[in-house]
């Protein structure tokens, strides 16, 4: 038996197929992954993401610490509640994890890191924090629900504390509001509007059941993956890891190198830039029959092979799509090796669907 979230019983009630996910017993789907995917694109769905790890940082030098710890620059965060997506790098520029940082005050930040990387993240952050006198407090007891889709806010707001709901209603994307142990960000991992709610574990079942009563349907990890892939969002451990830099993962935009700020991994990234970044991260749309999957080899005329990092059948586009690491200089088309056959694919920017609409010509 794996670890269980405060909503495990609710998953069983909704007929979840439970699978092991990084040591957690989590719902893969509740009957049909495809229907769940469309539900989020067209209406509203709720994901239990309580396995994700919330970490609070407190200390006078918390801002200085984060400016050193991660590749994006928290000094960009000027208003309380503003969030920042960033990678945390090792000395070689490899990605230890990707995370969201919420700015509360210059001495108080909240981090949300991946569940599967928790065991390496916490010791790393704690070790680096010592020199800055910053306290690192994990909040494993808190539950987290992601409510996503065009109707997510309309269906979720009536269930929240009125004062908090009024703030959440006016939140701009990538901003958060909080009251006590309820913390709500206008963020997500689907390419749709929505919120992520961090809340006390004892309140989670009531919110979950209220959402279901309002027509928000439970969505499993299966649809979470196809939704994020359509949105062109990277998945840690699949699209990037300790060996790959943000520069070869289409995450260059999250690296702030404009000023002289010293952060872990900076020297390695500068060296990679100076030598010429060898690979680019692209989206692929399959033009023949089949399904693109992670680790398939991509053949590029006159250049080294590339590799698919994650691929799937896109329920929205009714076609197979993928994220791939390809040699720099790649053109508009490539060939993907699927079961010993070469199938043509179109190379595009790594983003396929936003707010229910196709971004493909």
């Amino acid at each position, binding site marked *: 038996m794996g670890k269980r979230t405060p909503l495990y019983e609710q998953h069983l009630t909704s007929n979840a197929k439970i699978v092991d996910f990084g040591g957690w017993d989590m719902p893969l789907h509740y009957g049909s*992954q495809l229907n769940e995917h469309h539900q989020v694109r067209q209406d509203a769905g709720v994901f239990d993401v309580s396995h994700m790890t919330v970490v609070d940082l407190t200390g006078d030098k918390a801002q200085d610490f984060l400016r050193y710890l991660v590749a994006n620059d928290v000094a960009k965060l000027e208003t309380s509640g503003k969030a920042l997506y960033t990678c945390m790098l090792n000395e070689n520029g490899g990605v230890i994890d990707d995370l969201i940082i919420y700015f509360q005050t210059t001495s108080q930040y909240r981090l949300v890191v991946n569940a599967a990387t928790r065991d390496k993240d916490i010791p790393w952050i704690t070790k680096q924090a010592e020199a800055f006198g910053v306290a690192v407090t994990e909040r494993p007891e808190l539950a987290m629900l992601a409510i996503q889709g065009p109707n997510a806010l309309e269906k979720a707001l009536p269930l929240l504390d009125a004062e908090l709901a009024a703030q959440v209603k006016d939140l701009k994307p990538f901003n958060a509001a909080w009251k006590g142990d309820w913390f709500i960000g206008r963020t997500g991992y689907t390419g749709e509007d929505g919120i992520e709610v961090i809340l006390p574990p004892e309140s989670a079942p009531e919110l979950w059941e209220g959402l279901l009563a309002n027509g928000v349907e439970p969505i499993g990890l*299966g649809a979470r993956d196809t939704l994020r892939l359509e949105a062109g969002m990277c998945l840690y451990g699949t699209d990037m890891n300790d060996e790959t830099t943000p520069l070869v993962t289409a995450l260059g935009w999250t690296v702030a190198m404009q000023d002289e700020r010293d952060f872990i991994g900076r020297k390695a990234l500068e060296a990679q830039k100076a030598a010429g970044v060898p690979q680019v991260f692209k989206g692929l749309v399959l033009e023949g029959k089949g*399904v693109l999957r992670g680790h398939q080899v991509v053949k590029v005329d006159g250049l080294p092979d590339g590799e698919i990092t994650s691929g799937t*059948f896109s329920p929205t586009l009714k076609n*197979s799509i993928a994220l791939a690491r390809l040699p720099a200089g790649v053109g508009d088309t490539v060939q993907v090796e699927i*079961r010993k056959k070469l199938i043509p694919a179109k190379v595009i920017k790594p983003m396929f669907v936003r707010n229910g609409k196709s971004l493909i010509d």
Partner: protein
Amino acid sequence: MSQVKYTSSHEWIRLEEDGSVTVGITDHAQELLGDMVYVDLPEVDDEVEAEGDCAVVESVKAASDVYSPLDGTITEINEALEDAPELTNSSPMADGWLFKMTLANAADFDELLDEAAYKAVVEAEDH
């Protein structure tokens, strides 16, 4: 009454009146795989060997090989699956059939698993 047999790799095989067989994946298999999005079938006249991979069913989740249950020759494929792979979910043992084949040795059919033996295989996997 038609006779249906099974393999431990989750194919079903129905013996037809003319001595050929129809092959598909079992309800248990489709349930494990989830929503099907693509089916790659063999070609008519392909010669196939028992336990050799001859088709692929792909769900949103993963690709899975389908194995020929016996030695023989493909005579027909279910072309409806090209546009409607979900038939393997909704009707795995009828409209969602994959291919038909003639057998090199008709007697081989009797060697396949009967329903009780297949159920035992599924139960063993669940534990």
